[in-house]
């Protein structure tokens, strides 16, 4: 009996200092110290221009039809999905105004309108994609509207290679099919990763009613 107690005490003696340190650094606690420290788990954005691609290509800026995707004045979002792209462990800023033809109306970081909209567009720079299409749009369609390459060999301006494998995750699960065929379903959380692996959050919480 005494030996069992001693064993448990020795076990706690090992874990105790670590737990105490956790409490000290307020990890996970709601205490409000005077200043926050840098968080090593936070990601970093990559530099421009590679990690901050423009929203429009010459064709989409002019509102020209892109295959079966047409630019129209009416846009009623039916659903929303979320896209994140990481290259070499750094975050790509998905611009607002993808799929909104020039001239765009802007309000700070947001795009509030343009001469016409494609059935896939972004109005905020957060990776939220608004989808109006009644057909089943794919990630490939979004990149076509964006005017950026997406294939097994290339994502945006970056080439894949032995040191830069391409991995795609949908709602936290690895997508094994064609990267262009990823369906943009309601509240899908899509992560495209080129190079270094980044621990992902499996789901994106959309505001109520979206």
């Amino acid at each position: 009996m005494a030996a069992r107690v001693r064993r448990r005490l020795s076990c706690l003696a090992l874990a105790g200092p670590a737990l105490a340190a956790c409490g000290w650094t307020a990890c996970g606690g709601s205490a409000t110290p005077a200043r926050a420290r840098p968080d090593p788990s936070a990601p970093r954005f990559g530099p421009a221009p590679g990690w901050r691609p423009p929203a429009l290509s010459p064709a989409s800026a002019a509102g020209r039809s892109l295959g079966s995707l047409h630019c129209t004045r009416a846009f009623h979002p039916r659903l929303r999905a979320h896209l994140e792209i990481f290259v070499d462990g750094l975050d790509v800023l998905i611009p607002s105004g993808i799929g909104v033809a020039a001239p765009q109306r802007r309000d700070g970081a947001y795009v509030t309108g343009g001469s016409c909209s494609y059935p896939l567009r972004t109005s905020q720079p957060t990776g939220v994609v608004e989808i109006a299409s009644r057909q089943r749009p794919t990630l490939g369609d979004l990149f076509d509207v964006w005017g950026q390459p997406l294939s097994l060999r290339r994502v945006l301006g970056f080439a894949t290679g032995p040191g830069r494998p391409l991995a795609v995750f949908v709602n936290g699960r690895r997508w094994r099919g064609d990267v262009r065929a990823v369906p943009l379903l309601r509240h899908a959380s899509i992560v495209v990763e080129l190079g270094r692996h980044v621990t992902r959050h499996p789901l994106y919480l959309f505001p109520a009613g979206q």
Partner: protein
Amino acid sequence: MGRALTPISAVGCAALLLAALALTAPAAALGDADPASDVLLLQNTFVPGSPLPSGALTGQLRGVTERAHKAGFALKVAVIGSPSDLGAIPGMFGHPQRYAGFLGTELTAGKLTVPLLVVMPAGFGSFELRAAGALRGLRAPPADSDGLVRAAIDAIEKLSAAEGHPVKAPSAKGGGGGGTTALVFVLPVILLALAGLAVSRRARRADTGRDIESGA
């Protein structure tokens, strides 16, 4: 001497130790997907997405932040009203200080650090703000979007004064949310007073009529 640890107790002990270490060790880099970080790269304020605060208050917040920048007190402000404002990290809702550290690190590029104010219903958080102590005297922000934005404006005024660059928020165009709230409370009082006045006048008239009748 006690007995040596049995395999089961050794495994349990190791698991407890690993759990403790996992809590203390820095986590691996996480994908961002918190909307405020993307927006604050391009502008200086982020406000709740649902429900949106009034346009007048949002304008005031932008205005006071801009004035602070011009006065030499550059800062960015994230007003978080609900877990969905945190996108893929809703677990940070209710932890303004923790989120301030996360968001501040995200926005930090190279050696450039960004002073940051975070406002949540649970309170204030700050990152690289020298005058963060000025936040201590402030009341906890309310839970609604308008109230949170007002709390952010008050906090910026306090912080800017403490930093030695005092600025005031520009006046709200079109009345703003405060006017609406005041009207909600004041209007019933005015209506009741008017109703009371009408009733007392009618009663006085009736009395006068009765006096006339009785006098006739």
